[in-house]
């Protein structure tokens, strides 16, 4: 697939490279609008900082794992993500009485789609993490070792078991996890990504 990145893809690159100079520009350019929005809607600076940071970390993961490429301007994409995250946060707090002051940002279909991709990515990520924690301790430990160490021989050594046993256990634990995910309602609601 040949997707042409938007010029603003530099911000995604900066997240991947932990480039504080460009990230600083990102905050200077895009955070005031988000802070303003959150402060107008029952939040404060601390909340805004959290929302912005979590959104950026999500984008980082998506870029790292899925090679996410930004094809639209960062501004509206980022603002919409932060805004929706904040609305979710308010819902979680059971803050139903707040009136949401809506802004009139018109956004293109392409932007909408990119926002949605990021959101689905995050929901999937969270679901996997949640289900991972439902596994038994032994399985969690083994899988963690598997993904961190990579060589199954070393994993077996590390856990003091034979290679064959480690392999078998890994498939078993992954199988259990697959079942947990498959049988969850959330997964069936997620669109494939």
């Amino acid at each position: 697939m040949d997707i042409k990145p938007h010029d603003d893809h530099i911000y995604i690159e900066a997240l991947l490279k932990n480039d504080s100079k460009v990230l600083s520009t990102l905050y200077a350019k895009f955070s005031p609008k988000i802070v303003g929005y959150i402060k107008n809607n029952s939040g404060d600076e601390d909340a805004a900082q959290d929302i912005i940071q979590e959104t950026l970390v999500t984008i980082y993961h998506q870029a790292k794992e899925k090679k996410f490429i930004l094809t639209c301007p960062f501004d509206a994409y980022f603002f919409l993500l932060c805004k929706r995250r904040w609305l979710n946060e308010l819902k979680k707090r059971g803050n139903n009485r707040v009136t949401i002051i809506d802004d009139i940002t018109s956004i293109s279909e392409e932007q909408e789609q990119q926002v949605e991709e990021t959101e689905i990515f995050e929901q999937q990520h969270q679901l996997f993490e949640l289900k991972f924690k439902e596994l038994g301790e032994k399985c969690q430990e083994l899988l963690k070792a598997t993904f961190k160490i990579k060589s199954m021989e070393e994993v077996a050594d590390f856990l003091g078991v034979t290679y064959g046993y480690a392999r078998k256990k890994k498939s078993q634990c992954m199988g259990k996890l697959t079942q947990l995910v498959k049988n969850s309602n959330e997964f069936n609601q997620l669109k494939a990504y």
Partner: protein
Amino acid sequence: MDEAKYILFDKYLNNELTSVELKSFEDQLVSDADFKHEFEIYKALETSLAAKFENEQEEIELRKTLQSIGNQHIKAPKKETKVIPLFNYKNLLVAASIAVLIGLFIFNNGNPVYGDFANHNALEIVVRSENNQAVVAAEEAFNSKKYEEALQQLTILSDEYSEDVEIELYKGICNLELNNYTEANQIFTEISNGKSSFSTTATWYKALMYLKQEKMENCKKVLQTIPESAEEYTQAQKLLKKL
């Protein structure tokens, strides 16, 4: 659970199937929708978990950068930061800190408040514990300001590492954030009287504890014991001036 199926998935993803097995695997992917569905989940999980654990450290680093940039841009008064040329990071840093100072002068002519001074360093536990889960959980909880949870995890760790002053200190900070003043006081006093490298940090936190309780006289007294050589000296002087 169909174990053989998952062993097959694992082998497929590791390119370990013989050509005959491969052929039959791929045939089944086409003909058996359920098989395909499960394989897709298995594969997605594999990718997602691998990325999660591989990028764990990088994520912590990124969070640190974002936290400090966020502190400059969001917590500092907006007006001052806006006029600064965006491309010059060094100037930006200097200007941001000036902005903070000006901000403190203008807005805090009244009594100083705890929130202005309580900037906790991110928790990064150095000990390599058997209990890595608690280490990660404690760091995550603390750095996202979930102090109750952080305190729980740190308590687990401190049972294991009763000698680790840093863990104790952060337990104290959690207690302070949660307004458990008695516990916080006990911890800060003990570290502050000790000889570890955290002793003046603990003294500073003890002062913050009094500030939070608005016991200004006690706060002053404690601040005056922070020596000039200490890292916390400048902050301490700044706070003293306002008291």
